[in-house]
């Protein structure tokens, strides 16, 4: 089982909403218990009198970061599938300033205002009402600020990418930064807020091992491990379970037959990526409509996420089968290959042979369908009793990739339908 569960299709949209409810209840409960339903408490952090918001949020960040790192490192979580909000530097700075001003004036951030509202605080309810009004207003003025809102786009970028440092090193740095922030926060609370640090806190001048300190030390240890542990992202080194793959290959569950593939394309299915692993030259000459070209020599996992369904094909079947094995070893589960490759595609889809005149009625009906499919892909029927049309006596030359006489619905681009995602 591999996380993120939703992206790997462990459950659907409906169940994901139920999961959202359960995690939402948990988050609301703990925010309230941390005192985040109280505007005075939240605003106190801006005067450095009570920095529990900083402490709670930094704890959450560090816990999630180290947890993701460890899960990614053990191969239980595919970090490349975690949703990242794209960065638009200038508009996000402006938005951050507006949010900060609102936070200082009103005493809430969006999440804590919801917590406050449902605990019956009137200021929280007014805040939520304002938030909804702001959303409506933003939606109304968005067309006129769209250019600014889309400016300085940097894409989905992470700090390790931005600074070009190893992922683990950054984990370690953030852990140290968080611990430094905790100590600084307690110091500020003592100086400015007059709060006595709790017994067993990091500031207490003893060498006693308290739960807080044990937690801090284990965080540092995990961070240090991360610094030398390398990147939890996918690496080109793969691993296979021989028995599992042997079973799949032996029982042909990894196959897609040419007529099935043709049906998928005609139906306009967009839940798979069709990949041509031949050379670019061959691809340019002919390829199955909707296919993308990833030559076997340059194959890596970069063209698709691990939860995608991928169908490989090559001239025969050998290169596709090799690509299948390579991607399976990288942890891709939904990998298939076109059985018989392009040869089979030509024989059974593009240029099907008509049955003998004595064939049964059901065979004739089946052939009529195949003839129609063949026409869709710009092929032609072979054989004596072929339907009217230019019968090609010998192995015909392939028509261009996209047939000109295709029916109204064009062959779909095999763009994967993205699952809904949000932060």
């Amino acid at each position, binding site marked *: 089982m591999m996380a993120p569960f939703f992206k790997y299709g462990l459950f659907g949209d409906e*169940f994901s909403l139920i999961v959202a409810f359960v995690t939402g209840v948990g988050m609301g409960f703990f925010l309230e218990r941390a005192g985040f339903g109280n505007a005075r408490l939240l605003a106190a952090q801006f005067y450095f009198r009570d920095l529990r918001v900083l402490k709670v949020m930094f704890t959450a960040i560090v816990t999630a970061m180290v947890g993701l790192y460890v899960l990614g490192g053990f191969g239980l979580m595919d970090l490349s599938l975690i949703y990242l909000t794209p960065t638009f530097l200038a508009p996000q700075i402006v938005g951050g300033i507006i949010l900060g001003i609102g936070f200082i004036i009103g005493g809430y951030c969006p999440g804590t205002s919801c917590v406050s509202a449902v605990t019956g605080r009137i200021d929280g309810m007014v805040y939520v009402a304002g938030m909804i009004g702001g959303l409506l207003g933003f939606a109304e003025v968005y067309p006129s600020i769209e250019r600014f809102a889309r400016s300085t786009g940097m894409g989905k970028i992470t700090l390790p990418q931005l600074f070009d440092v190893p992922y683990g090193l950054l984990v370690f740095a953030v852990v140290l930064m968080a611990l430094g922030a905790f100590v600084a926060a307690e110091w500020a609370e003592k100086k400015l807020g007059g709060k006595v640090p709790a017994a067993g806190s990091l500031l207490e001048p003893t060498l006693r091992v308290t739960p807080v300190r044990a937690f801090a030390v284990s965080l540092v240890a995990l961070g240090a491990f991360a610094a030398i542990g390398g990147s939890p992202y996918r690496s080109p080194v793969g691993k296979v379970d021989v028995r599992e793959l042997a079973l799949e290959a032996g029982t042909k569950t990894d196959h897609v037959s040419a007529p099935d593939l043709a049906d998928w394309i005609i139906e306009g299915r967009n839940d798979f990526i069709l990949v041509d692993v031949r050379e670019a030259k061959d691809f340019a000459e002919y390829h199955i409509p909707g296919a993308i070209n990833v030559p076997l020599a340059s194959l890596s996992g970069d063209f698709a996420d691990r939860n995608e369904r991928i169908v490989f094909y090559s001239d025969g079947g050998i290169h596709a089968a090799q690509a299948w094995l390579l991607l399976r070893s990288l942890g891709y589960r939904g990998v298939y290959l076109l059985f018989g490759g392009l040869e089979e595609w030509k024989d059974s889809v593009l240029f099907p042979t008509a049955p003998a005149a004595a064939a049964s009625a059901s065979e004739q009906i089946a052939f009529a369908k195949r003839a129609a499919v063949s026409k869709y892909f710009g092929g032609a029927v072979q054989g004596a009793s072929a339907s009217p049309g230019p019968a090609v006596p010998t192995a015909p030359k392939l028509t261009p990739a996209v047939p000109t006489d295709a029916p109204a619905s064009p062959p779909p681009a095999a763009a994967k339908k993205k699952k809904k995602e949000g932060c």
Partner: protein
Amino acid sequence: MIESTIHRHNAGIDPAMHLWGWEIPTYLFLGGLVAGLMIIAGVRLVAMRPRERQALVCCTIGPLVGLALLSLGMLALFLDLEHKSHVWRLYLTFRPTSPMSWGSWILLLVYPALAANAIAHLPEAIPALAKRIPVLVTWSDFILGRSRLVLAIGFVNIVLGISLGIYTGILLSTMGARPLWSSAVLGPLFLFSGLSTAAALLHGILVLTQPAGERPGFADFLLSALARLSESRPLDHKVAPTLAAADNSFLTIELALLGLLLVGHLTSTQVHRQAAALLLTGPYAAVFWVFVVGLGILVPLTLQTLELGHRIRHTLAPALLVLGGGFALRVILVAAGQASHWASAAN
């Protein structure tokens, strides 16, 4: 012909039965709520001594609120009728095989029973009203002076309440064309859901009528807008926990009945399994589990258990959640029921 019957190109082939909008769920919810109020108020008359009953202000307000809510529910039911001017015809006959007939007669009997229940202790509950309308005192004295009459009113309320509660479920379950509804569990399910919403409503009224200092701030805010609706009384330390405890039992039973409903469907024919799948994995799964099971049952159960354990104060939250959950149960079952279909198995 084959085109229109086999491929159902003609919409008239399948009767259109997804006709119910907000009216029916609203009526089912209010009907169940009133049934619960009747049963609780009836039990009070039968089981408690007159002196004890006087303190139970909420149980007098309960039947009064019940009368108002039932009228609202009947209005919703009336709005749903296709031929509104024919409504009197329901009262020209009685058909034992028709749930509609049962329902209309039960509803007619519920009014006097509820009114008698309310009048019994009305003068003590709302003295101002009794001063304005002295005849209320006369009626109240008449009822309280005859202990057998009090018992009779109590029993009639209980019996009619149970009938009304079960009938709201049976009304749906007799329609075989809707696989999701065709389960006898629906009757008791709606009865216990009605009981839980009634207990929650009374609990909510108790919380609202606390003295100003003990009320939740939010309730204060509401009440100040509504002027002096009722005099403040201390939270009844005997009744509030009883109501919360009763509500918890009703909610637990409701949860079990929901489970039985789903198990019954899942172990039945393919059509019924598809109907249950609408709630388990289908388009109604999220709203069902979040609003009915999560917010409507599990969260208030937890909150009321904490209240009973004196861990937190009695608040309006569980009452609002249970009432919302009860309404969501009706809305979702009516909508999902109309989406469940025999033909879906064939396709």
